[in-house]
């Protein structure tokens, strides 16, 4: 246990990295923009948080089933990174992807309906929590194989490169995935071919119940990634502004043709690995310590102290977000189930479904 605590302490906030955004907000005009922008970040994180809290209730009341992996605590990563991405960019995700999907703009209704296995779900109920897809938003899953999305992301980046243009593919994965061969094969391939790929490693210190130090001989992940010849750095994953600044810098550099970049976001999941996990492998005190760095609280506090957030605004925000989530639940409840008659659909393409 002491190892983990020591490691936690090592995580000093990378102070220098995000200076630019703060400096830019010194004039009043900028401050107004910055405050709107920050409010939008806060709102997005809140949507993810409340969505998942509602999922816990729905899971307990057996409305939704399967493996459900919550992202609570890690919201700043999805929201910060997504700010750096454009509509034409692509996102490849994992089984812990509610946050990535919502940040990417997949409607909460469609995500919730997918959890219910309804026909209005973003994968028509064929995917479930771990397999969210939205082709129109270039959201390519939703992959329950640890590291399975990495080669796909390299391929999407390759296609974009071969077709010209400056699209970026962003791939989220965990510290556990970093130990898989697929990460290393992909890093090598992407760096060798200078693919427009943003590799975002969400280091939440655990792969299920195995802590970072028990899964990696060398725990400095950015250093290892940089050995493939790509820019790699570490960012405080509990600070959405820091994540956004780092991701912007990486995305711009990728668009400028500098090949893949690696971003390690140091973060923490406040909940168990999945709804099945009794969470026996980490100390309550460790979790409590991390909760003090709650990314939502952190941003809200900062905005308050800089005069950008009033209690009234916060209450309004909470209410708006609750409405969004309740609407999503209601529409999922009301939607028709994907009919059993469609069981064998989408195994192979249907006529007229040709890309």
């Amino acid at each position: 246990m002491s190892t983990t605590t020591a490691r936690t302490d090592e995580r000093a906030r990378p102070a220098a990295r995000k200076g630019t955004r703060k400096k830019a907000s010194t004039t009043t005009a900028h401050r107004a923009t910055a405050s709107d922008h920050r409010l939008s970040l806060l709102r997005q994180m809140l949507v993810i948080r409340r969505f998942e809290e509602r999922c816990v209730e729905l899971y307990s009341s057996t409305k939704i089933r399967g493996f459900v992996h919550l992202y609570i605590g890690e919201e700043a990563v999805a929201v910060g990174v997504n700010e750096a991405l454009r509509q034409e960019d692509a996102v490849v995700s994992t089984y812990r992807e509610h946050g990535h999907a919502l940040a990417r703009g997949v409607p909460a209704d469609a995500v919730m309906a997918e959890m219910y296995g309804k026909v209005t779900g973003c994968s028509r109920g064929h995917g479930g929590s771990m397999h969210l897809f939205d082709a129109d938003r270039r959201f390519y899953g939703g992959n329950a194989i640890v590291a399975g999305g990495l080669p796909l992301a390299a391929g999407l980046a390759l296609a974009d490169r071969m077709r010209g243009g400056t699209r970026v593919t962003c791939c989220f994965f965990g510290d556990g995935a970093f130990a898989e061969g697929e990460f290393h094969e992909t890093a090598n391939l992407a760096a060798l071919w200078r693919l427009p790929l943003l590799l975002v490693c969400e280091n939440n210190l655990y792969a299920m119940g195995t802590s970072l130090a028990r899964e990696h001989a060398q725990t400095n992940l950015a250093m290892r990634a940089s050995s493939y010849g790509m820019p790699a750095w570490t960012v405080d994953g509990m600070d959405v502004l820091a994540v956004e600044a780092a991701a912007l810098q990486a995305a711009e550099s990728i668009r400028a043709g500098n090949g893949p970049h690696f971003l390690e976001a140091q973060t923490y999941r406040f909940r168990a690995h999945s709804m099945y996990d009794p969470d026996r492998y980490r100390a309550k005190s460790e979790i409590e310590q991390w909760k003090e760095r709650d990314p939502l609280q952190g941003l809200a506090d900062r905005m308050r102290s800089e005069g950008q957030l009033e209690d009234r605004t916060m209450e309004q925000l909470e209410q708006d977000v609750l409405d969004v989530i309740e609407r999503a639940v209601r529409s999922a409840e009301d939607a028709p189930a994907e009919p059993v008659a469609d069981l064998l659909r989408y195994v192979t393409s249907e006529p007229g479904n040709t890309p």
Partner: protein
Amino acid sequence: MNTRRASTKAPPPTTYREALREALREALHDERVFLMGEDVGRYGGCFGVSLGLLEEFGPDRIRDTPLSESAFVGAGIGAALGGMRPVVEIMTVNFSLLALDQILNNAATLLHMSGGQLSVPVVIRMTTGAGRQLGAQHSHSLEGWYAHIPGIRVLAPATLDDARHMLAAALADPDPVLIFEHGSLYNAAGVLDPTIEAVDLDSAAVRRPGKDVSVITYGGSLSKAMAAADILSGDGISAEVLDLRALRPLDDATVMESVGRTHRAVVVDEAWRSGSLAAEISARITEQVFYELDAPVQRVCSAEVPIPYARQLEEAALPQPASIVDAVRLAVS
């Protein structure tokens, strides 16, 4: 006069390897198509299939990859999602196991898991089979494993014409297609049928009509079945030889029609018997035309050992014309 001379002059002979190369060359005229794999470029393909294509189409389209089957097969799947039409070459089916996760968990499932949103028009080619004394790790026939998987199409071109024409049809398919080329076929030489311009991927072919027994096979075993049929005809046994061509989806109709006529069936499959494609076909015959059968379905498969190196052992392990002849005699006795 001229026309007559042209029609009587034999077209130039070609090899299976050249037929595959010609198919690739034609496919590469579509800007979305590119070939990717280990040693496909400078080396010319480890079986020489892509020799010369690098010079013709450049390194962007004929793409040498690092040794990383999972990454480059997965990248092919991702590139297909991204609007390209990749042709991925894996040296042999034995090495494809390092990419099995990508093929099974991504290529075959993305369409379904996404509720029909994401189709994966990737073509994956690889060598399969034994017969060249390469030892176990280069000699296995695992295409039947892939034929087990819903969501992909599995092809086995056994003839020059199929080698020449299956790729175009595979690339026109919006779903993942795996093409298995038997290693012993690359040097097979013959003349392409000039009347064939396209093939369909759904039908098995009757390669030799007959009336006493249906010999059902595919890929590298086709020539052995044909040789067996020759021997049998000397004994007055008329064997019909079926080439499955597509291992998934299986063309039940052609198989059942044939067995319904001959009332006897022998399945020849270079894979191991247990849990094989031969087992599947035998089961389907029993399910669908049991009352037409005059004898139990026979199977000729590889011995249940890792394929050995020594020539005599390897030959003994694999289906051979003689073992097919024996099985047919048993079926018609």
